[in-house]
């Protein structure tokens, strides 16, 4: 384990940014935190997490897939993919780090999505332990340790210092570059912080939320539950929950005519939207209740069924904070899964 003083972080950022683009949580003018490309003087936010998750780094909201040029009856296909450049995402919380595993399950499964894979190969994740989790946090429900985040490098921040530990080869290589700015140290301070975080986690209001009632094989049990109607009663059918969610990864593919050619791009889509499954021939999910059910069944039953029990929720709490009508996965778990679930 290595450490550096908190005061020296600007130098550390400068060193990292020499070789790769560096992104970190920065407080904006509106007081809200967002991942921002580092430039000299930008400081690491003290806030718990960014308003928008980090999924854009690997799965941007829109990206071009391929271009076409047409002339007469002929089409030319232009592969516009370019190799990603190395980049570093600093200060990612444990929940969001876990969300990359969830996304990997989809995009890296054969046939691999080359756009995502390329960014994953070139991205380095520096994950930060959460010293001050908030009431909407429930990462522990999904077995995530806020005190020991995964990622290529894990860091712990105290009042005066930052502690560093590499977890992967990529991380070790980067940490070596910071040798001059960091020094070897014992794990004492980090161990103490881990204990403190563990105690805090127990005090969180959602500390007892568990997934016992969910997972593979529960489709029949919950699909026709009468509670879906009541839960979705006030759902606006907007895409907020899906877009702030670090694990939601549904996408649409669309063509855009530039006048000179056609760009085929993909963009985030939401199962909450009424046109998500609409075909010329019919619509399997006619009401918002069915769309709402799809989102939560996917996260709590279908995804684990297809992915060795892994849930596609990491307990980051963004949907709890952002849903315009305050309906969210926690309320769904407690209602559908029964009271003993809480």
């Amino acid at each position, binding site marked *: 384990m290595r450490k550096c003083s908190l005061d020296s972080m600007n130098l550390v950022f400068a060193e990292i940014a020499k070789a790769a683009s560096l992104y970190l949580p920065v407080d904006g003018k509106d007081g809200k935190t967002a991942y921002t490309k580092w430039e000299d003087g930008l400081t690491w936010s003290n806030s718990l997490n960014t308003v928008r998750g980090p999924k854009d780094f690997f799965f941007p909201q829109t990206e071009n897939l391929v271009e076409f040029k047409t002339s007469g009856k002929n089409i030319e296909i232009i592969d516009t993919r370019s190799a990603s450049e190395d980049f570093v995402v600093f200060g990612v919380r444990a929940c969001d780090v876990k969300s990359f595993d969830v996304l990997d399950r989809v995009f890296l499964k054969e046939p691999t999505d080359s756009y995502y894979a390329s960014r994953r190969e070139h991205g380095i994740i520096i994950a930060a332990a959460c010293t001050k989790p908030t009431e909407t946090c429930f990462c522990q429900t999904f077995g995530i340790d806020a005190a020991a985040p995964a990622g290529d490098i894990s860091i712990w921040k105290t009042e005066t210092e930052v502690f560093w530990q590499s977890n992967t080869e990529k991380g070790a290589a980067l940490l070596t570059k910071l040798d001059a700015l960091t020094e070897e140290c014992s794990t004492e301070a980090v161990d103490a912080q881990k204990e403190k975080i563990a105690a805090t986690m127990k005090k969180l209001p959602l500390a007892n939320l568990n997934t016992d009632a969910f997972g593979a094989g529960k489709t029949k049990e919950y699909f026709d539950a009468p509670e879906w109607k009541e839960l979705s009663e006030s759902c606006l059918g907007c895409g907020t929950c899906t877009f702030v969610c670090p694990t939601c990864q549904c996408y649409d593919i669309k063509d855009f005519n530039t006048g000179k050619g056609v760009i085929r791009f993909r963009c985030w889509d939401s199962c909450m939207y009424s046109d998500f499954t609409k*075909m010329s021939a019919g619509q399997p999910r006619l009401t918002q209740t069915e769309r709402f059910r799809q989102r939560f069944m996917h996260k709590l039953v279908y995804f684990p069924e297809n992915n060795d029990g892994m849930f596609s929720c990491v307990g980051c709490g963004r949907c709890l904070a952002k849903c315009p009508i305050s309906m969210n996965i926690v309320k769904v778990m407690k209602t559908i899964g029964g009271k003993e679930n809480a």
Partner: protein
Amino acid sequence: MHNHQEPLIPKIGVITDVRMDTPDIKTFRVVTPDGKKAFDHRPGQCAMLSVPGVGEAMFSITSSPTNEEYMEFSIKKCGCVTEWLHQAEPGQQITIRGPYGNPFPVDDEFAGKNLLFIAGGVGLAPLRSVINYCRHYRDRYGKIDIVYGSRSKDDLLDYKEIIDEWANDDNVHVHLTIDREQEGWDGHVGFVPNYVKELGFDTDKTAILCGPPIMIKFTLDGLYALGFEKTQIYTTLEMRMKCGIGKCGRCNVGSKYICKDGPVFRFDELDELPDEY
């Protein structure tokens, strides 16, 4: 620049022939620019066709894999992409990628069985691939019955092929029906589910269904009444699709993605899925 194959980037396909099958269904013959088949497929699999600037859509490959020269797609005019395709002329390039989905189990579960194909309207399109595959390897299968119905005589897909080829095969029995009486039609009149009941098939068969949901529902009831088991009946499903590879997230029924885990299902498998298709 990129080492990875990208499944979402299509190939160019050339429409070499357009056949007007019914007033709203045309069959398109597609090859690559150098005149070859775009890829190999199995009966029941699908391909993504697109018209750049208009959109991309999934279609079942209606030609048999045993056709080594080209692929065919029977496409009903019902949306943006299909409307555009219906105006296309031979020589028009489109894009194609695939094959997608699981095929009908023609070489295992179907082998040695008597087969009963039941189709309504454009529902014959995915079954034609299977029927012609089975006709090609005729000695691998038992008796073949084909029940096919449409609104009118003019709405019967592949009518010429059915009459000139299928009906003339040994041990292939074609049963056509149309919804209402029509001049020049001396065949059966009535809906497919009723016709199936009237024909009263023995249960020594594997049934393969494709058609509008209402036809499937009533035909199933009829087959169950005749004593068929769910494990003897197959169908192929349709959902809105974008990626074709189980990632974009919209074609699922329960935990199954129709593009990847389907579109072919046996009815006992469908029983395991929620009723949302």
